[in-house]
């Protein structure tokens, strides 16, 4: 379809222009940003990136974010694996209700949980640690991981479980040695989406940290509100947050729809 190609090109242009503008700005000096409208950096500078990589208050933001994101990914997938197996293989008392309850947690507005989480994690002494954010993000990532993994596991024929049992495999050995390799791509997709949803969330991450575990997203909002904005550095910080998504998206390109739709596509 000739018209189709034009629509796709226009749409991609619409998607890429704002991103291009951010990248463009990250390589400009602040004088160039505020004084003239230039479509590409006339005085190319790497100072904005240099500032981020040398100033601890900036690069620590990335390290803090990565800490809780990785913790959360491990927790979510680890906890979800056995549960997803149970949902994909057995019926048990209350299974449908449980599945719905998990879904409703994925849909719950983080704003509702911000204040109680703040109280809860302060009370147990986890406030301002990566653990607080990692556990808080389990609220929506564990259900997500269960749903995605269940979709992949249901694709594995049950005969494999039965054959392994006849061959004398114990359940844990069967699960680790035979079953896990079979759903490796599913685990990869689940991990990717847990990583992503933890990485893009700001409200809970900001509420549960103050100094020591402050995520990059919160560091950026502070700069936005400060008087006399450092647009160049802000743009550079933004560009750096795009990298994790851009790096791995190629590998999950065929599963993007599945992951966002809770494994239901």
């Amino acid at each position, binding site marked *: 379809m000739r018209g189709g*190609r034009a*629509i*796709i090109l226009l*749409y*991609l242009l*619409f*998607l*890429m*222009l704002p*991103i291009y*503008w951010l990248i463009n700005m990250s390589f400009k000096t602040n004088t160039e*940003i505020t004084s003239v*409208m230039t479509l590409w950096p006339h005085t190319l500078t790497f100072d904005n990136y240099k500032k981020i990589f040398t100033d601890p208050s900036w690069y620590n933001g990335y390290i803090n974010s990565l800490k809780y994101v990785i913790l959360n990914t491990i927790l979510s997938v680890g*906890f979800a694996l056995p*549960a997803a*197996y*149970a949902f994909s293989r*057995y*019926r*048990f008392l209350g299974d449908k209700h*449980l599945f719905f309850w998990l*879904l409703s947690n994925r849909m*719950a*507005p*983080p*704003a*509702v*949980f911000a*204040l*109680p989480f*703040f*109280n*809860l994690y302060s009370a147990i002494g986890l406030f301002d640690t990566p653990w607080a954010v990692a*556990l*808080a993000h*389990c*609220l929506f990532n*564990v259900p997500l991981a269960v749903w995605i993994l269940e979709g992949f596991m249901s694709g594995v024929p*049950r005969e494999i479980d039965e054959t392994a049992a006849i061959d004398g495999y114990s359940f844990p050995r069967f699960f680790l040695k035979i079953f896990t390799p079979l759903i490796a791509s599913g685990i990869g997709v689940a991990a990717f989406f847990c990583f992503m949803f933890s990485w*893009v969330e*700001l*409200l809970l991450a900001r*509420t549960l940290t103050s100094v020591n575990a402050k995520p990059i997203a919160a560091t*950026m909002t502070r700069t*936005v509100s400060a008087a006399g904005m450092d647009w160049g550095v*802000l743009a550079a910080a*933004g560009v750096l*947050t*795009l990298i994790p*998504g*851009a790096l791995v*998206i190629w590998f999950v*390109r065929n599963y*993007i*729809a*599945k992951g*966002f*739709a809770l494994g*239901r*596509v």
Partner: protein
Amino acid sequence: MIKPVNQKAWFLVAPVLLIVAFSAVIPLMTVVNYSVQDTFGNNQFFWNGVGWFSELLDRSTDLGGRFFDSLGRNLLFSAIILAIEVPLGIVIALSMPREGWRVAATLVLMALPLLIPWNVVGTIWQIFARGDIGLLGAAVNALGVDYNYVSNPLHAWITIVTMDVWHWTSLVALLCYAGLKSIPDAYYQAARIDGASRWAVFRTIQLPKMQRVLLIAVLLRFMDSFMIYTEPFVVTGGGPGNSTTFLSIELVKLALGQFDLGKAAALSIVYNLIILAVCWVFYTVMTKADAKAGAA
């Protein structure tokens, strides 16, 4: 495939139950607790019954007014973005290249906005739409429109809606594309032999096949737009005035800005009940559709 009944499966589910209960049930109980009590500070609470709720649901009070206003704004916002993103997503899915390297390249580029941290989405549009340093703002101003999203409520709305379309239309498109891919070629060949028009093919073959994914797309988009917080917070901070203060922004203002525990908790509970109700409809319709797909 019929699954065997096995109550021991509960042991496998228990860890998830524990961790989600820890992060969902305990906080929710705290909220319920706050919602029926009042405090003068110093951690001294006393019983307030349904006082906060009756204030919340009464439009004439300050709290009720703020609740219904932000609820109305949020519903309007969700309706607008659904009306734009769903048709646009379908058109884009229908225009996707059929095969070759172009498919993969388009998929990757399309998914890019979905993977950007939400506050950075806000930052990108804040920069892009500003009249002084942004390409979009400067271009619109050059056309002779005095565009300023910081002071003009209508412009703020247009900016936020455009941002959401930019951010999430790809999700609808990707889901629809996944639905379209499942249509066997034989259907199209049969349609060609029958001399069916482009519209007839869409109405009788493509739309029915996309029905299930469209349902998921609509509900995911409704849910996420109904709890939108970060993007408008970064771009407009809820302003100018209160014109872009959505439910989550109002709630965070109450809870973390003013520490109005009782009011915030009552709002949280009503908010959560609305979500739960919509979620239940979603789940019921979806499992019905799943069962139908399984039977066919």
